[in-house]
C-alpha cells in the first residue's frame, strides 16, 4: 500500500512537472502573438475600454489601435525590477495609454540573449540594439524602415543633435532602420588625484605618451597609496586589452593611439583591416613593454569591467591602480560615489587626451528599432513609432520617465527632506527641497546614494527636456562637458555577411595575437603572420564584400 502511494505521488509529480514545462513555454508565445496577430483583429472593433483615444496611442492614420508594446532592453535601463520598474511601467502606461511589457535582458550577454530570443520566434515590438549589431541585422529585413516616420516625427522641431541619427542612415539609400535618442558617449581617462598629489604629479604636465608612461611607472614603482610599500600598486587596469564591441580600443586609448584594430573605412572610402596595420603593431609593442614592466595590472587580460572597476575603487588600495579609463558623464559621478562608499579619497582628475590620442572616441550610439511583422502593412509599425518613439522624445512627461524614472519614486518636485548615510557622521548628508523643486530621490536599492538616471543620460539626449528638469549633479555635467570637448566620432561598423558569420573567429584570432605579443612577449610580426594565416582569407572575403 505504501509503495503504491509513493508510486502514485511520483506519477503525479511527473505529470505536474510536464504540465509546468508546457505552461512556461506556452506563455511567452501567446504574449508574443498578442501584439502581432491579435491586434489587427482588434482594429475592427471600436475600443471603448479606456481613455486611450485621448492619448498619443489613439488609432494611427491607418486606423490601427495599438494595445500593447513588448519591449526588450539591456542593463542601461536603471529602473530594474528591484529598482522601481513597476512604477516606471505604470506611469508610462498612464501617460501613453498603451500597455508596455518590459523584458530586461542581462547586459553583458545581451547580444546572445537577443539571438536566442529571435531563434525562439519570440519577437518583441521594440528593442535596443548596439550600433554594430544593428548593421549585422540590416540584411535580415527584420527591422522596420523608420525613414518616413522619423522624418515626419513631431520631435524634429526639438532636435538638438540631428547628426546622431543622420549618421545611422544606410549609405547610398539613405534609409533609416533605427533611432538613437542619445549620442553614444565614450570613455575618458580618470586619474586618482590623491595618488598624483602623493607623488607630486600635476595633470597639466601629462601631455604626451611619454608623460603618461612615466606617470604609470611612478604609480607602479613608488608608493602612491602611502602604505609604505613600493611596487605593490599598478599604473592602469582595464577590462581586456581590446574590447569585444566597437570601438574596441576605448579602455586603453593611450596605448592604442592612432591604431584602430578592426575593419575600417579609409578616407578614400576603401575598407581595410586596421588590425594588420603598422599602427596596430606599434600599439601592441607599447602594450608589451608596459605589461612587461608591470605598469598594467596583469589581471587586465581576464578582468571584466566590474572586476576592473572594483579593483580600482577597492577599499584596500594595495594592488589597485592610479589610472582607469571608463565612461564619461554619469560614471564620473558613480565612480566618485563608489570611492566615497569604500572610504577611499574620491577626488578624480579627468585627463585631457594626450597628444598621440588627440581625442577620445564617441562610440556609435545604441539604437532603438521596431521589429517589422512582415505583413506589408505599416499601420502597426507606425502606431508603435507614435506611441513609443514620439513620446520618448516628447520633451515632457514621458521623456522625463525615460530620463529620470518614475515620479515620487526616483525623483520628485514635492517638498521633502531626507538623509543619506544617517549612521556615519563623516558621510552623513542632509537634503532639503522646497515644493516645486526638481530633485532626485535616494536609490531604492541603495538608500545611501541618490538615484542618478533611468535610461537616458540627460546630457547626451538628442532632444532636450522642455520642462526644465535637470540633474543637479555637478560631476555629471562636468564630465559630459569634458567628453564633448575632447571627443571624436567612432568609425562606422562594417556590414558584411561574412563578417557577421565569422566575427567570433576573427575576434579569437585577434586575441591570440594580443596574448602572444603582450603577455608572452612574442614577436609582433610572427604573431601577425599567424593571424593572417588563420583568418586572412576570411578578412579578404569581408573586404571584398565591403568594397564590392
Amino acid at each position, binding site marked *: 500500500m505504501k509503495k503504491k502511494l509513493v*508510486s*502514485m505521488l*511520483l*506519477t503525479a509529480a*511527473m*505529470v505536474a*512537472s*510536464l504540465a509546468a*514545462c508546457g505552461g512556461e513555454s506556452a506563455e511567452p508565445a501567446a504574449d508574443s502573438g498578442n501584439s502581432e496577430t491579435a491586434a489587427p483583429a482588434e482594429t475592427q472593433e471600436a475600443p471603448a475600454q479606456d481613455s486611450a483615444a485621448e492619448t498619443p496611442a489613439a488609432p494611427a492614420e491607418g486606423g490601427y489601435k495599438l494595445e500593447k508594446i513588448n519591449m526588450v532592453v539591456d542593463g542601461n535601463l536603471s529602473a530594474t525590477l528591484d529598482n522601481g520598474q513597476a512604477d516606471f511601467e505604470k506611469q508610462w502606461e498612464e501617460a501613453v495609454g498603451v500597455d508596455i511589457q518590459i523584458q530586461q535582458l542581462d547586459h553583458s*550577454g545581451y*547580444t*546572445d540573449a*537577443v*539571438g*536566442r*530570443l*529571435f*531563434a525562439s520566434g519570440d519577437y518583441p515590438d521594440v528593442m535596443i540594439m548596439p550600433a*554594430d*549589431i544593428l548593421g*549585422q*541585422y540590416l540584411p*535580415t529585413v*527584420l527591422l522596420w524602415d523608420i525613414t518616413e516616420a522619423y522624418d515626419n516625427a513631431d520631435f524634429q522641431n526639438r532636435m538638438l543633435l540631428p547628426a546622431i541619427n543622420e549618421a545611422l542612415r544606410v549609405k547610398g539609400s539613405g534609409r533609416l532602420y533605427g533611432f538613437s535618442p542619445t549620442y553614444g558617449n565614450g570613455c575618458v581617462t580618470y586619474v586618482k588625484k590623491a595618488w598624483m598629489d602623493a607623488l607630486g604629479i600635476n595633470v597639466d604636465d601629462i601631455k604626451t605618451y611619454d608623460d603618461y608612461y612615466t606617470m604609470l611607472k611612478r604609480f607602479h614603482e613608488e608608493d602612491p597609496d602611502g602604505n609604505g610599500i613600493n*611596487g*605593490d*600598486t*599598478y599604473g592602469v587596469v582595464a577590462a581586456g586589452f581590446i574590447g*569585444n564591441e566597437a570601438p574596441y580600443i576605448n579602455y586603453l586609448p593611450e596605448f592604442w593611439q592612432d591604431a584602430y584594430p578592426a575593419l575600417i573605412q579609409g578616407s578614400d572610402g576603401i575598407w581595410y583591416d586596421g588590425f594588420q596595420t603598422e599602427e596596430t603593431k606599434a600599439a601592441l609593442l607599447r602594450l608589451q613593454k608596459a605589461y612587461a614592466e*608591470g605598469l598594467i*595590472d*596583469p*589581471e587586465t*587580460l*581576464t578582468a571584466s569591467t566590474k572586476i576592473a572597476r572594483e579593483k580600482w575603487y577597492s577599499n*584596500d588600495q*594595495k*594592488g589597485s591602480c592610479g589610472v582607469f579609463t571608463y565612461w564619461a558623464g554619469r560614471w564620473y559621478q558613480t565612480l566618485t560615489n563608489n570611492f566615497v562608499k569604500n572610504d577611499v579619497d574620491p577626488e578624480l582628475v579627468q585627463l585631457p587626451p594626450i597628444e598621440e590620442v588627440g581625442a577620445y572616441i564617441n562610440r556609435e550610439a545604441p539604437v532603438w528599432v521596431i521589429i517589422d511583422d512582415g505583413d506589408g502593412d505599416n499601420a502597426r509599425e507606425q502606431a508603435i513609432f507614435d506611441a513609443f518613439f514620439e513620446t520618448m522624445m516628447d520633451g515632457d512627461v514621458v521623456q522625463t520617465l525615460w530620463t529620470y524614472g518614475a515620479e515620487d519614486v526616483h525623483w520628485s518636485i514635492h517638498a521633502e527632506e531626507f538623509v543619506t548615510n544617517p549612521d556615519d557622521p563623516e558621510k552623513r548628508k542632509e537634503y532639503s527641497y522646497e515644493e516645486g523643486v526638481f530633485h532626485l530621490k535616494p536609490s531604492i536599492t541603495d538608500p545611501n546614494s541618490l538615484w542618478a538616471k533611468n535610461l537616458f543620460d540627460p546630457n547626451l539626449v538628442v532632444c532636450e527636456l522642455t520642462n526644465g528638469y535637470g540633474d543637479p549633479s555637478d560631476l555629471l555635467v562636468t564630465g559630459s562637458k569634458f567628453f564633448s570637448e575632447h571627443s571624436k566620432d567612432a568609425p562606422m561598423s562594417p556590414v558584411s555577411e561574412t563578417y*557577421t*558569420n565569422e*566575427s*567570433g*573567429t576573427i*575576434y*579569437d584570432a585577434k*586575441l*591570440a595575437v594580443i*596574448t602572444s605579443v603582450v*603577455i608572452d612577449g612574442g614577436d609582433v610580426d610572427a604573431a601577425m603572420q599567424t593571424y593572417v594565416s*588563420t583568418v586572412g582569407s576570411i578578412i579578404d572575403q569581408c573586404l571584398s564584400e565591403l568594397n564590392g
Partner: protein
Amino acid sequence: MRKNKQVITSTGVAVREKPLGLRIWNNRGYYLMFLPVFIFVIIMNYWPMLGIRYAFYDYKPVGQPDWVGLEHFSKMFSTSAFWTAFKNTLELSIVRLLITTFASVIISVFLNEMGNLMAKKTLQTVIYLPHFMSWAVVASIFSLLLSPSSTGMVNGWLKDLGFIAQEQSGIYFLADSKWWRPIFYGINIWKETGWGTIIFLATLSGINPELYEAADIDGATRMQKIRYVTFPALSNTIITVLILNLAKVMNMFEPVFVLYNNAVYDVSDVISTYVYRQTFAIALPNYGYSTAVGLFKSLVGGALVLICNWASKKTRGRGIV
C-alpha cells in the same frame, strides 16, 4: 490461428505466453505509471533531436533555414580551432578521469585503513564538501588565490619564500599555457576526489574480513594486505568507474568554461566551449554550424560508449548498455 509461444516462469514451469494486449491490460497500473515517464522522455530527450537536421542548414536567429548540405562539416574539419578543441577535449577529459580516479582510490584505501572512526568520518566530510560548491564559486576562489597581482596569495607566498624575486611579476597561473593544465587538474582533484571515494569505500566495506584474517595468519604486513587483498578487490570497481566515465568524456564544459581565458585557448578550449563561442559570442550566430559541431561531438561520444561497452564485456563479462 497463431499459436502463442511458450515461456519459462521463474519457478521453471513452462506456460503459454499471453497475448500482448492482455499482458498490457493485466499490468495496466504499471503502464499507466510509466506513461508520464515515456512522454517525458519523448518530449525532453527525443523531440529535441529533430534539431539535428539544422546541422545541414544555415540557420540564423532570423529568416528561414537554408539547406547547405555538408558545408558546415567541411568548414569544421578545415578549421584549426576545431581540431585544437577536439584534441583538448580528449586530453583534458581522459587525464582528468585517470588522475581523479587514481586519487580517489588512494584516499579510499587510506580512509579504509584509519582506525579512529571519528577522525575517519570527519575527514570524509571534509573531503566531500568541495563537491557541493558550484564551479563558478570554485573558479572565483582559485582566481583570487592564484592572482598574479600583488594581492594574489600563492604568488605572495612564492615571493616570501624566495621562489620569485620581490620586484618580479607574479606567475599568471590561469593565463599561462604551461601552468593552466596542472592547475586545472589540481582543482579537479581538490573538488571531485572526495566524492569519488564513495563508491570505492562502499566496495572496500564489502571485502570479506576473512581474507584479511587469512593474510594476518600468513604474516602479511599492512602494505602487503593492501597490495594483495585490497587492490585486487577494488580492481573490478575501478574498471567499471573508468569505463562508465569514459563514455562521458566529450561532455566537458563547465570546469573549463569558468577557468579558461583567451590566453590559454591552445591548451584549454574544448568542443563545448568552442561551440559556445561560435554560438553566443557573435551578433547573428549560425546555429547550423554549432549544431554540426555538436552532432560530431555526439557521434564521437556515441562511439566511445560503444567502445566502452565492448571493453566492459571483455573485462567484466557484461556490457554497460
